[in-house]
């Protein structure tokens, strides 16, 4: 037997948009007419990629298009992607709920999937009866369930309610019991959709630990969908990254998460680098004074760039314009620069007032320059978001920051960079001799 657990070959899934029912009969007849003449399905040749935000031009859409990957036995694979990227569709095909439109999927081993809370639970039945029912639905034998029964109840922590109909359960108890059954199923392949979010943090920790144990100790294969990148990073070595129904990457988790975060950060608004032009939906404010140019320079060479090395000297320049300010005079102008990392977490903020520099009676047009003598970021992408304040009001603030990329480099000049791909910061440090 090969060591591959799941092999997905060129799988695509087409869906029809709009109201199902209208016109299906004519389409069905047309399909049938093509089929008896030995021609290909006419509706398979059309269809668009699945960008949910754009208005559709075709009635048919590819929820998944040409997905291809292999999962080895014992691997823990995460699937990431934004809403509507096709994650659930892929899981549905993997767990045999729906079939692919084209392509094949080959599996070695028993699959159990937990796609939603309380799958197959009947509200009128008690917890005990539902454990048996649910276990059987998932393909367990009766004696297997019986031998695991106590463990399941204990894991779920619902001893008191085990003989109460599950319709009286809280949603947390529901998911605990459901996950308890699935986790004790002992399938060779476990597929888990974003279901754990319902439980409290104690339960989430417990279930992630359980999944880790099941996969690492018992060599089970796991496929896990989550928007919680910490859980994905902890559990999965590799990830599939889906975007608009297509597989963007199948690679190591850290790379995927970085790529994914970057994408989702950029998705709506920002482009790499300089932003020139009029104010639009990329920024907000009273626009009495506008940002006409926002750019980064290497202070040593004077070149405009958006890629820096740790420890380099950086100049940030912002050109503002104002054609018709009251009294042709700006009372006070100030600039804040918020800096976020690739995960969208706030890192720090720069501000002229913080650095004892105040601009009073500023000209109507001008350039503000901020100098960072030693760029302290270790590695990765950072986003700098300008906020121009004029006379106490926000004149213009970007919705999202401008991206700069920081390459790992010797910040302290000692030959040791020590960043190892981590997105932290360096701070100045000094050490004393050993005191005796």
């Amino acid at each position: 037997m090969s060591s591959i657990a799941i092999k997905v070959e060129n799988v695509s899934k087409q869906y029809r948009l709009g109201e199902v029912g209208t016109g299906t009969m004519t389409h069905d007849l047309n399909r049938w007419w093509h089929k008896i003449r030995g021609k290909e399905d006419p509706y398979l040749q059309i269809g668009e990629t699945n960008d949910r935000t754009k208005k559709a031009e075709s009635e048919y859409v590819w929820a998944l298009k040409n997905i291809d990957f292999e999962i080895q036995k014992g691997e823990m694979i995460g699937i990431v992607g934004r809403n509507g990227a096709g994650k659930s569709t892929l899981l549905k095909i993997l767990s045999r709920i729906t079939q692919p439109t084209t392509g094949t999927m080959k599996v070695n081993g028993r699959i159990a999937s937990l796609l939603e809370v309380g799958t197959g639970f009947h509200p009128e039945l008690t917890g005990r009866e539902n454990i048996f029912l649910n276990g059987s639905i998932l393909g367990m034998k009766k004696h297997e369930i019986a031998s695991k029964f106590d463990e399941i109840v204990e894991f779920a922590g619902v001893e008191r309610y085990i003989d109460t109909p599950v319709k009286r359960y809280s949603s947390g108890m529901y998911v605990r019991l459901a996950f308890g059954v699935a986790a004790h199923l002992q399938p060779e392949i476990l597929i888990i959709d974003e279901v754990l979010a319902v439980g409290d943090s104690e339960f989430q920790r417990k279930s992630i630990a359980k999944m880790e144990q099941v996969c690492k100790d018992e060599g089970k294969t796991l496929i896990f969908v989550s928007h919680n990148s910490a859980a994905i990073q902890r559990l999965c070595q590799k990830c599939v990254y889906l975007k608009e129904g297509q597989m963007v990457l199948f690679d190591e988790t850290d790379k995927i998460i970085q790529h994914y975060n970057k994408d989702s950060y950029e998705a709506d608004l920002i482009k790499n680098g300089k932003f020139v032009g009029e104010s639009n939906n990329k920024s907000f404010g009273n626009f009495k004074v506008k940002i006409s140019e926002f750019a980064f320079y290497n202070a040593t060479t004077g070149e405009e760039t958006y890629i820096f090395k740790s420890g380099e000297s950086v100049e940030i320049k912002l050109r503002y314009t104002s054609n018709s300010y009251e009294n042709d005079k700006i009372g006070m102008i100030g600039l804040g620069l918020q800096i976020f990392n690739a995960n969208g977490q706030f890192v720090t903020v720069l501000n002229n007032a913080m650095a004892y520099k105040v601009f009073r009676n500023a000209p109507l047009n001008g350039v503000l320059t901020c100098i960072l003598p030693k760029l302290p970021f270790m590695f990765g992408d950072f986003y700098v978001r300008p906020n121009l304040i004029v006379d106490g009001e926000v004149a213009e603030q970007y919705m999202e920051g401008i991206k700069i990329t920081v390459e790992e480099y010797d910040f302290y000049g000692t030959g040791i960079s020590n960043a190892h791909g981590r997105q932290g910061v360096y701070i100045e440090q000094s050490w004393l001799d050993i005191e005796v």
Partner: protein
Amino acid sequence: MNKEEHWDLEIKPKAGLLEVNFKELFAYRNLLVLFIKRDLSTVYKQTVLGPLWYVIQPLFTTIVFSIIFNNIAGIKTGVVPAFLFYLAGTCLWTYFNDSLLSTSRAFTDNSGIFGKVYFPRLVLPLSRVLSGFIKFLVQLGLFLVVYAYFIIFTDVALKPNWQLVFIPLVLLLLLLLGLGFGLIISSLTTKYRDLQHLLGFGMQLAMYASPVVYPMFKVSDKWYGKYLWLNPMSSFLELFRYGFFGDYTVNLWYLVYSSVFTVIILGGGIIMFNKHEKSFMDTV
């Protein structure tokens, strides 16, 4: 990688028409039993009378039928007491009707489960008809009690005869007929919901096209009499009554016709169900 790779499972876009995975179905027999138990035990949860409803329903229907059709409309039922006649008809018809209706809703009622987890889909309609069968057995018990009462305490000329041995076969065929029709309808309703509306009153009309409220000999001299035999239910109902009562007509050829009809419907039902079970989640 060697050429002869082994896969436990291959998922492809299309599958064969009559391809029923009996091995897999057998592996899930536990689930079948649990589904039957669930169907039986949840219907009357939080009710006072519980399983008594199984007999109350046919009892009252029979009383109403006896009054309307026998007493008011004056349909004579031969030597057989009207109550017994209608009880037999009602039990059998309800059994067929329930098998058909519950199977026909297999997809739409269970879209929740079907959408989240895989198991051989045929388990569900099977469990439905089998739990219907168990319910029918209770009603058959009621019929036998009433039947015994008439034999022991009255002097009506009921002649139970050797054709009683066919009764289990009739019951099986009825179940398969209901299942077959149900499977066809369940497959079609996933796309064309119109059928669900048609079904409700269609089954009501179908009852009047079957010898439930009248014996076949009453219509045999009418011009439409022989067409009524084309209804596969006619022979089944008549044979059932013939076995118990020794009255009424049974024609072997009509019986063969009904049996063949059942097998064809069942085959067609399985084909359609198989075709739709893999894609129905996208249309339902």
